[in-house]
């Protein structure tokens, strides 16, 4: 599978170094290695969801109870979770770290992913959710740390986009 295992590990390590102890997730291709890392880590609580909006509730409860968490989701999962983000996390001033796989952007080969990608950034902008785009291994840890810092200090959602450049390794021709 051309999803980058090494990049996934770097992202996972950055979540850990930022104190994330609870990850909610709904599997998608680009997230499989991240989810397996969470599953194999005895110090991580992985919550596999039926639908992404549940993860907003989980993170809200976790934050109020003093735990740092992250939501692993596809961009369509983000679109699915918007009501919870707005009428839960934003209304109640609760930090969220949204780790979103940036499907449907340039280079996307799956026709069914091509529609959502047009809207990911525009919807984040419309919601005033600040974002970082992770493109190279070097920027993963610092950008994810800044995103977590901002989420915690502003008590609001912040998004980290996992881009194709980071997550996808083109197979050798």
């Amino acid at each position, binding site marked *: 599978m051309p999803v980058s295992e090494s990049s996934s590990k770097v992202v996972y390590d950055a979540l850990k170094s930022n104190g994330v102890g609870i990850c909610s997730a709904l599997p998608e291709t680009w997230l499989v290695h991240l989810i397996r890392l969470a599953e194999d880590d005895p110090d991580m609580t992985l919550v596999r969801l039926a639908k992404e909006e549940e993860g907003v509730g989980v993170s*809200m409860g976790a934050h109020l*109870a003093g735990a740092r968490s992250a939501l692993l989701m596809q961009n369509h999962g983000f679109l699915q979770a918007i009501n919870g983000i707005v009428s839960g996390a934003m209304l109640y001033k609760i930090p969220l770290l949204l780790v979103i796989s940036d499907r449907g952007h340039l280079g996307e080969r799956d026709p069914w992913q091509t529609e959502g990608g047009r809207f990911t950034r525009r919807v984040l902008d419309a919601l005033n959710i600040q974002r970082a785009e992770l493109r190279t291994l070097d920027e993963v840890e610092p950008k994810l740390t800044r995103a977590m810092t901002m989420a915690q200090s502003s008590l609001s959602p912040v998004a980290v986009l996992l881009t194709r450049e980071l997550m996808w390794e083109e197979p050798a021709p």
Partner: protein
Amino acid sequence: MKRIDALEAIYDDIADCAVVTIMGAVAVELYSLGHRPNFFYLEHAMGLASSMGLGVALAQPDRPVVVIDGDGSLLMNLGTLTTLARYAPPNLTHLVFDNESLLSVGGFPTATSTGSDLAAMARGAGIASARLVSELDEFTAAAREDLGAGELTCLVAKVEDVGPASFHMDLHLLENRFEFARALRPDSDERNE
């Protein structure tokens, strides 16, 4: 059975629990019995009270957590039953008041009014002990049993579709939110972690 009577019957039993309620009549009625810092009323994000309860329960496994849900809210997030069952936090008690109605917005009937059975759905999701009660004595005994069970439970209580005269609460939702966080983490300041 009236929901307010059911809440009153267990009011002392949930004194030390982190309690997460849904919006509307449930929140107002619990509040009217006497607010406590460990009570959180989710005034929007319909459906997510149980997911929030799961987050609290996973973050603080030693603290008893009670979610007070309703039929309309639970129907909006039925997947939560499968997620709760999957992780089954032993410190979580899920109470569902089923008045077969979206009472707070004018009393439109929900699908439980035409036979959808939330307790059966919870059992089907994997919460084996989930059950339905419809009398106050039965509710009180079952709720106390669930609160002491030491395992994930789900209790669905059929209640009349009546609510409070007023939905006003003299507690801003942000005040409630910061107070609740302080009650849950007395030793840490959430702004200085």
